[in-house]
């Protein structure tokens, strides 16, 4: 179902942790709320679930205003970061608990539990207790419990963050396939930008309780709306160098980059991604730098260069071989460079 958040705010006493959240989530959409720890993502999600009261604003699920509706009447399903399995119930009882509350007939309940368990490959574990399962299996039980009924929305609060890196990759793929299969609107909270980029139809980036940008992953990556989003998305992060704009060029310390059609500005944050620049001979480069360190990751080399005090990261191929402290020049692709207002961090357009 469609979920609409209209200027939703949350305060604990005098502390406002969610500051005017506006989101329109389409039916069947996979929306990922992304932000640093403590930025208010969980609080936002818990307000959709009904676990936290909404201080101001309104929430619609489908055509229904649920701003003040109790959680049990919202028909949402939630996967907790901690999984929250009922430790005294078997896997089957855990998965069937929501249906049992709906007083479903026994055989129907059994069928639904089996179907949900099959979706996450847990058929052989139905009679086990949660304590007899591995972390990944517990995670699957939590997923199956959410999927056993047909909720109007799936809510997931960092469901993969307790798994090891490899398992996380596997579960990410499964989660994406399941969501597409079921077609249930999903709101997914994470601080991991890779998870956000790989899972989402649209990513909503939050910072300190304020929504920064809502857009599809590619758009977020190519056209970040603020300096925060630019720094937050991408690994290694986008390079940001402080400079000024005049006469169709951006002048930074030790060099300048031709950048037409921009109005002159005193101070500006000049950003470019590590893959949108190149290392060249010192005398040819737009910017002059010194190599700070190089890291070979296998398929590429991450080169960190120092321009004065600032660090700039450049992606080079795996055969790159230069030593630390050598002088280099950096060429930036002007088409891919982005400008942000130095004070507000807002994107500056041509």
């Amino acid at each position: 179902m469609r979920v609409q958040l209209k200027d939703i705010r949350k305060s604990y006493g005098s502390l406002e942790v969610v500051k005017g959240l506006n989101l329109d989530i389409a039916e069947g959409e996979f929306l990922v709320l992304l932000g640093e720890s403590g930025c208010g993502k969980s609080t936002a999600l818990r307000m959709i679930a009904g676990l936290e009261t909404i201080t101001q604003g309104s929430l619609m699920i489908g055509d229904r205003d649920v701003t003040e509706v109790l959680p049990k009447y919202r028909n949402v399903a939630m996967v907790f970061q901690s999984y929250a399995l009922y430790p005294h119930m078997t896997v089957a009882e855990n998965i069937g608990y929501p249906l049992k509350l709906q007083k479903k007939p026994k055989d129907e309940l059994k069928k639904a539990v089996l179907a949900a368990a099959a979706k996450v490959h847990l058929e052989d574990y139905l009679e086990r207790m949660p304590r007899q399962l591995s972390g990944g299996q517990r995670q699957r039980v939590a997923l199956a419990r959410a999927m056993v009924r047909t909720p109007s929305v799936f809510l997931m609060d960092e469901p993969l963050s307790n798994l090891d890196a490899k398992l996380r990759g596997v579960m990410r793929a499964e989660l994406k396939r399941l969501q597409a299969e079921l077609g249930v609107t999903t709101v997914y909270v994470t601080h991991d930008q890779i998870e956000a980029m790989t899972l989402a139809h649209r990513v909503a980036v939050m910072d300190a309780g304020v929504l920064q940008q809502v857009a599809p992953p590619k758009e977020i990556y190519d056209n970040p709306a603020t300096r925060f989003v630019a720094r937050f998305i991408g690994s290694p992060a986008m390079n940001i160098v402080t400079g000024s704009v005049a006469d169709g060029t951006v002048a930074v310390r030790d060099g300048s980059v031709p950048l037409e059609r921009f109005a002159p500005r005193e101070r500006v944050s000049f950003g470019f991604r590590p893959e949108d620049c190149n290392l060249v001979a010192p005398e040819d480069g737009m910017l002059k730098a010194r190599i700070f360190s190089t890291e070979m990751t296998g398929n590429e080399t991450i080169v960190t260069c120092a321009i004065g005090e600032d660090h700039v990261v450049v992606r080079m191929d795996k055969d790159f071989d230069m030593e630390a402290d050598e002088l280099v020049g950096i060429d930036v692709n002007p088409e891919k460079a982005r400008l942000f207002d130095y004070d507000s961090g807002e994107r500056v357009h041509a």
Partner: protein
Amino acid sequence: MRDRSLFQRMFEPPSLTEMAPASRLLTYAILILWAIVVLFPLYWVFITSFKLPFQVNDGPDFIPFVDYQPSGHAWRYIFVELGNDTLRPYMNSVIIALTSTVLAVTIGSLAAYALVRIQYNVKIGTVAGFIVLLTATVFAITRFGTPWHITAVIALALFFFFATSFGRHFKRSLGNNDILFWIISNRILPPVVAVLPIYLMFQRVGLLDTHVAMIATYMAVNLPIVVWLMRDFFAGIPIDLEESAEIDGASRIRIFATIVLPLARPGLAATFLLVLILAWNEYLLALFISTADAQTMPLLVAAQNATRGPQWWYMSVLIVIMIAPIILMTILLQKHIARGLMVGAVKG
């Protein structure tokens, strides 16, 4: 490290989770010694219940059939000759201890759960207002003879008016920890302090020497212990579980019954047992509140010491039949006191 000297083998623990042979020996020696200290009186009471008076006085005789010839005379006296005089206090004890324990554990658990999950914020002004009005009410009824129901209604009305108007403007307030401390503080004073007021109260309402009086008193006395113990058990249940159940569609009562209670079972069993033992063995309050009809076992045992000097043999029989149900209860509840129920609830 393959070659360890004999000294090392004896005194160095082979790993962090094992004991060295020497310390293991010492530990078991102490444990066995202590077990003897604890178990010997039980054994002594048991064999004494089968002794004749002269055997007790000539003693000490340790082993039945070898040192002395056991006799059932004391058991016959208690069960046949005294008959109802034994059975009545026994039934009284069972009824009073069980009922008061069930009530205390039920009410106390609910209170403990509320103290864990709900954040209370009582303004100090409201509390003060309540005390002032209560004092005024008592004063008015006793000094001026105003009808108690009218006075109480007026006082209540005044209290609600005060709490919802001026009371709100007080800044200082009491939280859950203050409430808990108040509840526990009821148990800090020795019961003997409260004995006289309780006696007078039941005398006034004509309930002295009844089951109701005994049950009410025991329940009230044991409630703080239940609240105090159960609060920790409830606090150990992750709130995620309850939130998850809430989203799954469970009502608050349902959550309490299907999630919280099963997970608090070890705590409930342990608390139940402790409170039951306290109620079963209680002597001082029973001495005041019950005289004949509601007399409990501890009083009966003590009474064997009375006119004819200590009747060890009869007393032993009574003690044996008094211990039996508690041991039975402990065995029954033992398997519920298992730990580690919460494993697997949260995290991987």
